[in-house]
């Protein structure tokens, strides 16, 4: 399986894909009313704001020379009104845009998280978990600003630009055209910078992803690190990743800072041009009468500054977009990941399971290019049978039960429960009827009660306690101070592995499954507890089909059938007595544990 790890960059995608942007805009759709409202307000405000220079021109050209105090006061009051209206609007806009931005973030995050729930084991197996987590949390957050204000500002800036040009044209056509001469070189510069920045930002985000993956794994594996006294070496690796990220960040940022000088130079150049032509026009105007006046010149110059402001903003926004694209691509990549195991079209509910299981010529490999784990496996199990799977490690025991729960899809053949191909039913309806206890006992943060209840959320407290009693977990739980309300966390700290196994066992039992699957459920549990547990379990399991993987013979012997898994299939199958009589693989395994029993027994 091609696995990604902390020092491998995720693939860089090629070109800047505008469709991704359009797709992101799709998240704004539910808010289009609100957006339209804010937009309308905003246009009014920026239009009114642009009247400022005109008012100022009037003050300079008319009111002051004419000593019209009343006009000055009136204009000042008008300006004050504009300002207050602008402030009131800023409030409306803040509230609405922040809401929209946050809500879009929330829905993107929900989308990606919900989708992750549909992805099969293979997806999680294929990459460090840290890389998945940052996509859901950090990458989505990084879009926040872009969405809440960026897009709105962009539209606003474009429209202001149009307004400004209109105003400038109204004031003086020639000077406006002169001012706009800076435009073509600007576009050329932006395109150049964009291509450069695109690659840089992708590389930077890949490095960040590596760093995060390493952070996650370091924290999760800290116990191992400390027990091997490897802190120094890990600090070295972390240092390396950290430095690499800093290097790529600096590279990216340098490109970003190129933008401002270009815009500033162009805007100053246009100011210089406007001055030169303006002054020249002043003289020419004076010669012919009319034309450019001092007021016109000042007003134009005021607009020239305003003209470049939205352009600077748009340039900035562009930078932001390029940066955000690197994140956006990762987010959409995750959302677009096809769940390899999913409900087929027309899948029906799994009817209540009786417990008949059949493997028909099952062939399976974890990956197309990896060797087969199982080849043409055939067996059938009757209702209420208990089957023990034994055999050397890595022979495929866990794989067999994973296929039964449809954690992976088969390469060939079919798996049937009560004669129904499990691919033809809905995943949820299938798994809800099975109780699986995995080798990897995962404990969630919460109380012991919550953890057991995970098997069936609507179980009452009494039912939870009953399940705990059945697996002999009640004893140690009630001895702890807070009993079932004891807080435990992820790696189940303060619980021994045996205790975690018992909790997971109770969880599986609580699900009231029609088929119970125990993958090394008791490997870390002492023999006495296990025996007690088995006695209590016998009555609970009556009538239910069960599959048990174990190495301890005392666990296995009670099974109604034992299957020896080796060489990509089942090599021996039968009761303990039958297999012993066979003197084959099972017999050999048995002898390993009991080899010298006679000498001591």
């Amino acid at each position, binding site marked *: 399986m091609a*696995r990604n790890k*902390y020092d491998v960059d995720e693939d860089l995608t090629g070109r800047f894909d505008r469709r991704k942007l359009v797709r992101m805009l799709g998240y704004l759709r539910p808010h289009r009313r609100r957006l339209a409202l804010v937009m309308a307000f905003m246009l009014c405000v920026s239009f009114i704001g642009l009247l400022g220079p005109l008012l100022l021109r009037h003050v*300079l050209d008319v*009111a*002051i020379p004419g000593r019209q*105090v009343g006009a000055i006061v009136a204009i000042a009051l008008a*300006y*004050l009104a504009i300002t207050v209206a*602008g402030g009131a609007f*800023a409030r409306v806009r803040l*509230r609405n845009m*922040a*809401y929209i931005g*946050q809500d879009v973030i929330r829905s993107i995050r929900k989308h990606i*998280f919900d989708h992750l*729930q*549909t992805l099969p084991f293979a997806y999680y*197996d294929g990459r460090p978990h840290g890389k998945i*987590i940052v996509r859901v949390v*950090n990458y989505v957050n990084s879009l926040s600003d872009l969405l809440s204000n960026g897009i709105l500002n962009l539209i606003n800036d474009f429209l202001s630009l149009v307004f400004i040009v209109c105003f400038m044209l109204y004031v003086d056509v020639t000077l406006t055209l002169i001012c706009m001469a800076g435009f073509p070189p600007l576009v050329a510069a932006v395109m150049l910078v964009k291509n450069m920045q695109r690659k840089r930002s992708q590389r930077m985000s890949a490095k960040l992803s590596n760093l995060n993956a390493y952070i996650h*794994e370091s924290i999760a594996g800290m116990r*191992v690190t400390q*027990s091997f*006294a490897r802190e120094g070496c*890990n*600090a070295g690796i*972390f240092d390396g990743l950290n430095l690499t990220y800093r290097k790529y960040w600096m590279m990216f940022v340098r490109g970003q800072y190129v933008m*401002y000088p270009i815009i500033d*130079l162009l805007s100053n150049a246009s*100011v*210089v041009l406007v001055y030169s032509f303006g*002054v020249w026009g002043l003289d020419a105007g004076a010669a012919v009468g009319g034309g450019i006046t001092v007021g016109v010149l000042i007003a134009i110059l005021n607009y020239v500054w305003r003209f470049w402001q939205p352009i600077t903003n748009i340039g900035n926004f562009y930078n932001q977009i390029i940066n955000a694209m690197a994140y956006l691509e990762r987010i959409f990549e995750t959302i677009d990941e096809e769940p390899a195991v999913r409900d087929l079209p027309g899948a029906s509910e799994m009817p209540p399971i009786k417990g008949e299981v059949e493997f028909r010529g099952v062939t399976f490999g974890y990956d197309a290019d990896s060797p087969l784990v199982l080849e043409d496996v055939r067996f059938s199990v009757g209702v209420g049978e208990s089957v023990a799977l*034994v055999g050397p*490690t*890595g022979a495929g025991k*866990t794989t067999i039960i994973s296929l039964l729960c449809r954690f992976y899809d088969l390469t060939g053949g079919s798996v049937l429960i009560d004669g129904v191909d499990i691919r033809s039913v809905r995943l949820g309806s299938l798994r809800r009827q099975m109780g699986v206890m995995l*080798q*990897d006992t*995962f404990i*969630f*943060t919460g109380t012991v009660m919550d953890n057991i209840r995970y098997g069936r*959320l609507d179980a009452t407290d009494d039912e939870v306690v009953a399940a705990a009693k059945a697996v002999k977990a009640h004893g*140690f739980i009630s001895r702890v101070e807070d009993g079932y309300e004891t807080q435990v966390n*992820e790696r189940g700290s*303060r619980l*021994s*592995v*045996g205790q975690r196994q018992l909790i997971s066992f109770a969880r599986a039992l609580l*699900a009231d499954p029609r088929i119970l699957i125990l993958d090394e459920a008791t*490997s*870390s549990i*002492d023999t*006495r*507890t296990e025996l007690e547990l088995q006695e209590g379990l016998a009555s609970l399991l009556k009538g239910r089909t069960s599959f048990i993987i174990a*190495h*301890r013979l*005392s666990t296995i012997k009670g099974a109604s059938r034992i299957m020896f898994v080796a060489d990509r299939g089942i090599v021996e199958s039968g009761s*303990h007595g039958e297999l012993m009589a066979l003197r084959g693989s099972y017999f*050999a395994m048995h002898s*390993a544990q009991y080899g010298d029993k006679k000498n001591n027994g």
Partner: protein
Amino acid sequence: MDQFKWIGGYLRRHKGYLALGFACVTAFSIFCMVPPVLARAIVDGVIIGGDRKGLPTLLALIMAVSVTRQAVGFTRGVVFEHISQSVVYRIRMDIYDKLQSLEFAFFDRNRTGDLMARLTGDMEAVRHFVGGVLHSIYERASIFIFATVMVFTVHVPIALCLVGLTPIIAFMTYRFAREVRLTFLAVREQFSRLNSTVQESVSGNKVVKAFAQEGFEIAKHDAENAEYMERNLDTIRVWQRYIPILDIMAGSLTVIVILAGGLFSIYGGLTLGGLIMVNGYLWALNDPMRMAGWLISDTQRFVASCVKIMGLLETDPAIAGPAGGSAPTAPMRGAVEFRGVRFAYGEGAEVLRGIDFKVPAGCKVAVMGATGSGKSTFVSLISRFYDCTAGEVLIDGVDVRDREPVALRESVSTAMQDVFLFSDTIEGNIAYGVPDVPFAEVVAAAKVACAHGFIEAMPEGYDTIIGERGVGLSGGQRQRIALARAVIKAPSILILDDTTSSVDMETEVEVQRNLKSAYGDMTVFIVAHRISSVRDADVIFVLDDGLIAERGTHEELLDAGGLYREIYDQQMVG
């Protein structure tokens, strides 16, 4: 403010860059003052005064100022980015080192996702503050001050009118800062919680799917996600109250210029050029006011993150080397002694209630006992993953607390019950404790652990990358890699905590045979449940209820007819 003192400690290491950066900002601000001066010169001198010959010089000056200002601005940007990246780099390393120095109990208490947030989201807030906010504050303040000075040189009364607003603004920003900080603290808390929820859901994906609880996970995430949005909106609510007011204040400066400026130019001897110049400084006065809200807000975001980061950095490791650093460095031989050892996790009930024993170097010790009887706790005290609450643990007669933890663990190697493998190659995983070991030794260790066979059978052999926590390998395979990882260090004391529970019996027998011949003189502690795993030990301890209930060899304990005999009978039935 502690947070600023703290970040100051990091900034101080970059004095040179900081000086350069602030010099650039100062220069930049000064250059920002020039265009209005030139504008006045052009309007008063060239346009109105008719001195056309001065124009080319003035225009050349405009360009020159622009070029210089941008050069300075670019330098400033890059310099501050460099400083912020270096500071963040340093803090990240410090956090990482701190985490590595913290004891198991710390990781028992804290969620992975929570700690991750310190190194991701909180770092971002620090980066943003040092790289952007810090110099923006200085730049806005200096521009404001320079512009005020310039306006004073033009016309004192109008300057007084403009500056009159400043105290009100200062008061508003102060109140704003106080209120918004609380909301940011709440956002940070919720960010950690959200991160933890996602992290657990990803790490526990197998359990989620096994129980078809996707819906429950989604509901859990929805709740945290919505709560996170709500906390962010709380921040916005504070913004809503202050930012518009600051905006209005900034805008009212223009009103003052129109009104006062207009009146002063009619009555108070303000020239038209002077008014235009004042107008030119308007942005320099109102932009800092407009920005004040945002800068304050970003600063408070930074403070909220600092609180969390500093909290982590100030956590003292409970397990550290002896004070004074006089730890013995002689290599350990491996004699282990427990004297009246008692242990409890935190405030909980005692797990070990008085353990006494002494075994010589090279002894093979087996530990048995019921689930939860304290076996793992028992062996974890030897490597000092926890400190005993009473009594002493001695190796070669030296208390483990008198050694450097790292030196101790160099000599004590543990294969833990809960196997954690890293997403790395198999070779990298086996050589985890000794990264530079020659490949031949990796193979040798794998052979001892009976892992060589299945590793070789993989298409990429030792170069196969295994997923996090060892996905792609069966439980027994993972345990054998963990075993190889433990033995390759050739430690003085080897601790095998239920290391072969998922290994099939035939392989287990072989592993034990290999261990015996390859590492004859190590002290070995084996925690196991199978009689076959413990029978050959020099001494077997049977733990019960926090005490060593029985001790002796296999034969002695069988004859004693106690707990061990009972376990034996149960396993040997049939």
